[in-house]
């Protein structure tokens, strides 16, 4: 059950059980009250409570998967842009599997990478890494070659990433074979064997943002048809 909550509303906090406070809620420093700071749908579970809201501007959080563009390098640090006009984040040349002083990753300005936010304290520089800390392997992170990247809303990106059986992806699989990387910063990278298919997939995903799930199939079919596929 989810209800609309906007800033200024009271939050029904379950006093008995311990709940984790998630996004959209904030503890006022003066009154020690828990207040909603965003508008969205209140998700009040047993263990956690948060407000599910949509936005366009990505604010890095530790452990988020993101897609970024390299904008420059200074010594052993690459600067990476996660969204236009936001402060860039750092990616150490050492934060790659098997990296050493001699074995530097080959990243150019404009390279696209898939990474994990490793430190998101807003007071210092935000850091990302292309390594799975549990295995020390690439874990799917690293340079994204070819393909196409496009933007979607953040809530939609979250939904796509966390739902492995997402109907859109299932529908697309029926159309063609593709590789996909979904960044919680609202960036999606997709690659197929053919340019037209890549374009069709990306258009399909973008267009599905503004329709109900019942129409996904129809939208995807239209997009593919328009491109003559």
């Amino acid at each position, binding site marked *: 059950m989810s209800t609309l909550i906007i800033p200024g509303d009271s939050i029904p906090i379950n006093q008995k059980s311990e709940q984790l406070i998630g996004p959209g809620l904030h503890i006022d420093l003066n009154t020690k009250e828990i207040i909603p700071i965003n508008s969205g749908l209140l998700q009040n579970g047993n263990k956690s409570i948060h407000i599910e809201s949509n936005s366009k501007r990505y604010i890095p959080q530790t452990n988020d998967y993101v897609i970024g563009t390299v904008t420059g390098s200074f010594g052993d640090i690459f600067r990476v842009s996660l969204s236009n006009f936001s402060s860039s984040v750092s990616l150490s040349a050492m934060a790659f599997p098997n990296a050493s002083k001699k074995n530097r990753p080959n990243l150019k300005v404009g390279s*696209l990478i898939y990474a994990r936010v490793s430190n998101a304290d807003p007071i210092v520089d935000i850091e990302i890494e292309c390594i799975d800390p549990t295995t020390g392997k690439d874990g799917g992170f690293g340079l994204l070659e070819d393909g196409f*990247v496009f933007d979607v809303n953040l809530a939609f990106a979250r939904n796509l990433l966390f739902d492995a059986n997402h109907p859109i992806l299932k529908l697309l699989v029926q159309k063609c074979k593709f590789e996909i990387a979904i960044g919680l910063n609202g960036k999606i990278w997709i690659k197929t064997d053919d340019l*037209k298919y890549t374009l069709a997939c990306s258009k399909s995903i973008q267009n599905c943002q503004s329709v109900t799930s019942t129409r996904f199939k129809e939208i995807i079919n239209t997009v593919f048809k328009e491109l003559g596929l």
Partner: protein
Amino acid sequence: MAKGIEVSINEKSFVFDALKQGIRLDGRKLEDFRNVDITLGDEYGYVDVRLGKTRVVARISAEISTPFEDRPFEGLFTVSTEISPMASAMFENQRQSDDELLISRAIEKAVRRSGALDLESLCIIAGSKCWSIRADVHFLDYDGGFIDASCIAVMTGLQHFRKNDITVSGEQIVIHSVEEREPVELSVLHVPICVTFAFFNPEGVEENIKGESNNEIYIVDTTLEEDLLKDGVLTVAVNKNREVCQISKAGGLPMDALTLMDCGRKAYDIAVELTNQIKKLLEADYKRRNEGIQYKLRAENDRITVE
């Protein structure tokens, strides 16, 4: 170029590959102009233009002012084109970037210097009183094509605008309110329409100059994404009498002269279509307003008859 916007290598090569196959990301053909959606406001001279995701609002206003000393028989016409960060954070407030300068120059040339507005008709008393017409262009949303969109907005606004009627008696001017007398339209001499082309060179600059292949691509009415990747740009302002009011290609990719001629012809076709669209829109608006007035006059005031 645009500070803060990063285009990845992947996007760049994807866009180029697509163009080589004649495909644009938004599904248009290379020579297609986006659909132009023009809305007229209740107030005279308020025009809202949408060109794809690009959105521009023009406000035309008039006040009585003093003419320039060296041009006592002419009224004043100012076009203000300041771009705020509303359109995109790439534009800084009150600090004109090169892009912004280019946009305002192009509009200035196309609309003001082409004499689209008859300045002499704005003279009230030579040397001391004249109308000062102002076009404020507000850039709300940016997805390329600011020059073309604002030109459409200003030209539609000028034709839509009505200034208060005045009576001159000796040295005195009586300004009549809208209720008192039907306001009068501006004397617009012709309607220049800007069409902007972008050039791409997927083979690299050397191939472009030395090679024989002529593989350069030109596309009409770029979106921001295409705009960020273009190698050259050409703006043509033309009216439906086939008169070219300005043509500017500021550096960039060297292009074949024949291609430019081709662009000119394309621009003309687009201009004719847009001019007609504007004309129809204005006629419909006039009709709508007049129906209202007739009704109002009949209801309130039987002493005036309307033809």
